[in-house]
């Protein structure tokens, strides 16, 4: 990747990070964080919190939180694969649970959008604590691209992302 393309990718990541947390109410509500995002991939994290618990006897986070993380991560990975903000809508999401989550631990997930066609993007994801080779759950998702039911919203999102990128690159330039 050329230096310019690298810089652009880094700025896009920053802008996306801000967007995920600031502009998605439920993601904000559960404390979802973007750990990293690059071409076609995203890593997200949910810090352990008592209100996310599914089983009060064991203190293990509810499976629905994992569903949310994986759905969100797959969406971000798809946006990262597309290169410019696009209206996308989840068609389907399948989650397989390998093992129970451990009590009181943060959960991370990694998603990879491995195939983009004209209308559909395909994504795989894994949720884990520290070791991706010991997954809590894996998922497969298909996203519709330029989906009618996802909006006209992409023009607003696109302007926000480009705006954020301009701000960041302007301050970047001024710091030499």
């Amino acid at each position, binding site marked *: 990747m050329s230096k310019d393309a690298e810089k652009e990718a880094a700025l896009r990541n920053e802008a996306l990070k801000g967007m995920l947390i600031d502009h*998605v*109410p*439920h993601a904000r509500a559960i404390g979802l964080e973007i750990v990293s995002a690059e071409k076609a991939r995203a890593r997200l994290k949910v810090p352990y919190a008592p*209100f996310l618990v599914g089983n*009060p006897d064991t203190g293990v986070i509810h499976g*629905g939180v994992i569903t949310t993380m994986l759905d969100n991560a797959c969406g971000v990975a798809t946006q990262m694969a597309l290169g410019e903000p696009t209206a996308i*809508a989840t068609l389907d999401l399948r*989650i397989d649970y390998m093992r129970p989550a451990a009590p009181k631990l943060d959960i991370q997930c990694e998603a990879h959008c491995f195939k983009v066609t004209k209308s559909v993007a395909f994504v795989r994801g894994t949720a884990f604590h520290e070791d991706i080779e010991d997954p809590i759950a894996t998922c497969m998702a298909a996203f519709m691209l330029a989906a009618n039911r*996802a909006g006209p919203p992409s023009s607003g999102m696109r302007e926000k992302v480009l705006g954020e990128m301009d701000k960041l690159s302007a301050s970047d330039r001024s710091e030499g």
Partner: protein
Amino acid sequence: MRDLEHISQGRDINEVMATIPYVAFLGITFEKVADELLAKLTFKQDLIGNPSLPALHGGVIGGFLETAAIVQVARESKIRVLPKTIDITIDYLRSGRPLDTYARATITKHGRRVANVQVIAWQDDPEKPIAAAHGHFLLEPLGEANGDDKASA
């Protein structure tokens, strides 16, 4: 979960659900509507995924469907712990608008160890579901023989 066996005996589900932090946070309750028990997700701003539409977050819908399935299995089984999700597939059919959402879960096959469940969710029009899901749930029956529940791993 200690109170779970009471669900199959008809004890108030909402009391039990209120003790599960994430379920209480999402705002999932159960109500009897024309003789059937439906799951209800009461709308609030924290459930939104895309604010420009606005639309409910897909993960919230998924968690709601999964919870509806688990409760249905708990109601129809004699078990002491919550069924564990083996797998669940969610089909997103329509955008979830900022309204209350309802779900109905049906057990398609109730085996001894595995239940296969289908769930459907709608908002203002039952003929226009917003999502459907199906999944497999693992059951730990109350004791294989004479209450010996050390038998299972």
